[in-house]
């Protein structure tokens, strides 16, 4: 009951956040010079044609009316139609979401599988000579190599040397499960490098944070084996910051890894959003941002719930800060 109340309250706060984002994205998108009509119609259109299209798109009314109409529809689940394709925006996004989701989950999976053990190792070796230097530089490099450098190198390597994966063509997972997974692998790998490095660093910090705790000292004093201590007394206690990071990373990846999607020509939400920006396809920009925000808000509620389950001392239930 208390949990339900807490969740309810947390979701309400989420709604407030979403409303804030709705306001921000709506007005920010319209601050951008260049009307949808002029972008779409090109240079050769007449002013009358521009005006007609503007009226047709409902962009001639004052901003607050437009916002009211839009938010009214959003509440009923209608995000409007794309100016370019004329299709409902939600359908367009639904078409691209599986692609981005596959990529995001793969990248996150790789990041956690690599990052967590690496981070634990780093923490355990933090005090040893040599061990720390190598891993510090490796995870430092991981977060220092921009994805557009790494991505370009991967694209070049795989397109010039036959390595079994063609990257010139992307297959969506909905078209062919196996090919879809294979073609998601390289972009997911590129994305996962930063994520894995960030995970490793967070894990290291979290584990180091736990390792100073008296109950670890006590376990060591009992002569327990290191990996048993890690398994029983460290991982669970260090998992909250790691989970929080994972949620942030997932929200970031789902919100569109624009650059990597572009480099590998992945038809995902990110590249769609970028194009929509160029074309002033407001409905798409707004819906994509709202989607990313919903993911973010839901993820943060889930993470807080999970934190409560993981650490019984954190009784955020009932408290909000």
């Amino acid at each position: 009951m208390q949990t339900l109340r807490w969740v309810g309250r947390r979701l309400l706060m989420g709604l407030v956040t979403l409303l804030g984002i709705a306001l921000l994205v709506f007005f920010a998108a319209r601050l951008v010079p260049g009307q949808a009509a002029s972008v779409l119609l090109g240079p050769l259109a007449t002013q009358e044609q521009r005006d007609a299209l503007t009226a047709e798109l409902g962009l001639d009314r004052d901003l607050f009316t437009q916002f009211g109409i839009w938010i009214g529809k959003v509440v009923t689940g209608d995000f409007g139609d794309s100016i370019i394709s004329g299709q409902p925006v939600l359908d367009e996004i639904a078409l691209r979401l599986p692609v981005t989701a596959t990529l995001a989950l793969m990248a996150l999976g790789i990041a956690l599988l690599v990052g967590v053990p690496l981070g634990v190792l780093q923490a355990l070796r933090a005090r040893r000579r040599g061990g720390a230097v190598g891993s510090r530089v490796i995870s430092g490099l991981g977060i220092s190599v921009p994805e557009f450098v790494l991505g370009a190198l991967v694209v070049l390597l795989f397109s010039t040397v036959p390595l079994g994966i063609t990257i010139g063509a992307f297959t969506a997972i909905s078209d062919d499960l196996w090919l879809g997974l294979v073609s998601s692998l390289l972009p997911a790998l590129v994305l996962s490098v930063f994520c894995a490095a960030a995970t490793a660093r967070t894990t290291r910090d979290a584990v180091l944070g736990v390792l100073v705790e008296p109950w670890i000292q006590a376990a060591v004093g009992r002569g327990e084996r290191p990996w048993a201590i890690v398994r029983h007394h460290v991982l669970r206690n260090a998992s909250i910051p790691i989970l929080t990071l994972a949620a942030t990373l997932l929200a970031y990846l789902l919100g569109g890894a624009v650059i990597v999607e572009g480099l590998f020509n992945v038809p995902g939400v990110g590249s769609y959003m970028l194009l929509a920006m160029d074309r002033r396809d407001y409905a798409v920009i707004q819906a994509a941002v709202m989607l990313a925000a919903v993911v973010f808000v839901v993820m943060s509620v889930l993470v807080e719930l999970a934190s409560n389950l993981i650490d019984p001392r954190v009784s955020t239930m009932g408290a909000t800060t």
Partner: protein
Amino acid sequence: MRTTSKITVAAAAIAALALTACTGGGATPGGSEQPADPNLPAGYASVADESIESAGGPLHVQVDYDTAEAQGLDPAFAEIARSWSIMGLVYESLVTVGPGFEIQPELAASWEQPDDTTYVFDLQPGATFSNGRAVSAADVVGSLNRLRESGSVWSGQLGPIAEIADTSSGDAQQVTITLETPFTPLLAALANTPAAILPMQEIEAGELDPTAEMLGSGAFTVAEHRQDESWSFEANAEWWNAEQLGIDALELTIAADDQTRLAGLRDGSTQLANFSNPDALSLLAGAQGVTAVSQTQSDFFYAMLNSVNPDSPFVDQQLRQTVNAVLDRQGIVDLALAGAAVPTAVTPANLPDACAADSVPSASAEPAADALAGESISLLIYNDDPSLTALAQVVQQQLQGAGAEVTLDSVDYGTYSERVYVAQPGDFQMALGWFAGYGDASMVTNWWNPETAVFNAGFAQPHDDLSAAIAEAQALPAGTERAEALQSVCDLADTHAEMVPLATRPQVVGIRSDQLSASVLSDEGYGDFLRLIAEFKTIEG
């Protein structure tokens, strides 16, 4: 840019060789450069081997951007070159453009011109829409009239049409177009996709919404379209020339990033891709199994010197002329366009009857070394076309070389179009852009009359002498006399110096030649590098 115009290239052969030599990019034997290959027939950059039996199968093509038009898939309103290429796969026009910009039969099997103002077209006997209904003269008349009445910018391209009539007798379908006055670019305009022949019967019956669906008489039908992502085409079994078609299906992937298309060609997952970056020639040099050819576009870059906005220094014609004279077009070609383009005047340099870039008055003017000293100029460009950005920087260097202070104002296309085309007067001093050069030297000259062009009314002024010269040239039949008339158009435009032509726009076509034997024209006016797709043959293995 992602959205607006069309393409080019020319004496690329020599330039490409020179480029490879100086970059040390390792010109592999059998690589991609194509010096004037003696085996190629005139007008071709690549020719499909007729002796090959096509292996069929799907053809994978990657292009840089998708069609995105306010009127959806309706060809009559299509403004982007890429739309023309894509729609041209499904729709046919009466005529098409062959090597050397020669007008050739397409939906019309033949035509006659009994006098200066009359054109009689006989349709292909077997022409059929993909729904199985035969193409009738009524479809042609209806489609062309629909274009004329559409208010589309292309309606004006057809010239002073008096009447389009169905003059069929019996089974032979025939259409006659009568002009009020002679208009030479008519056939070239009819060859462009906006003049495509639509199934008017279905449209008028409300069975087909041409903005949402394509139903044509051409080589392909649409199986699937995901906006900005991909197109799937299937061979149209009803096409009158279906037996000749070497491929069964066409998978068109939209890949905005040059790297992706380069990678697709290199790893063999793509058989054909286009590039507006002239350096694609050297970037593909040495790639196993890849041939890259440069297709000279009649599209060209030009500078706009705003003579309408009182805040612009270019209200002063003297200054405009000085800037025009300072600009070194060959230098621009060499540095910004990798040599894969040619300097041009108003009439696109590679079109018959065009005037030479160095024939106009500004070419022989010799401005002082500090002719622009004390001038401060703001140069507006949009930033998503690397060629344009490169060009702008070279222009900036050249003007600064003559003493001017030039600031580059790079904005995204939406902002650019707002400031250049929508704002009245145009909100800029100097800007750079490009547009299609089309298939006839006199077509693009229309844009030098702001009263009919409209889009440039915010920064250019109408000039009676220039407008008269344009009209006069368009009425003359191709030949020496017209070339002279066009020369005076070039000279006058050069003197007014409001829209200043610079150089043609490069286009490179990469072909996976171990998987595909492709035909590509060496010159193109509508950016349609897929024009000869019917001749393509896939290679087994």
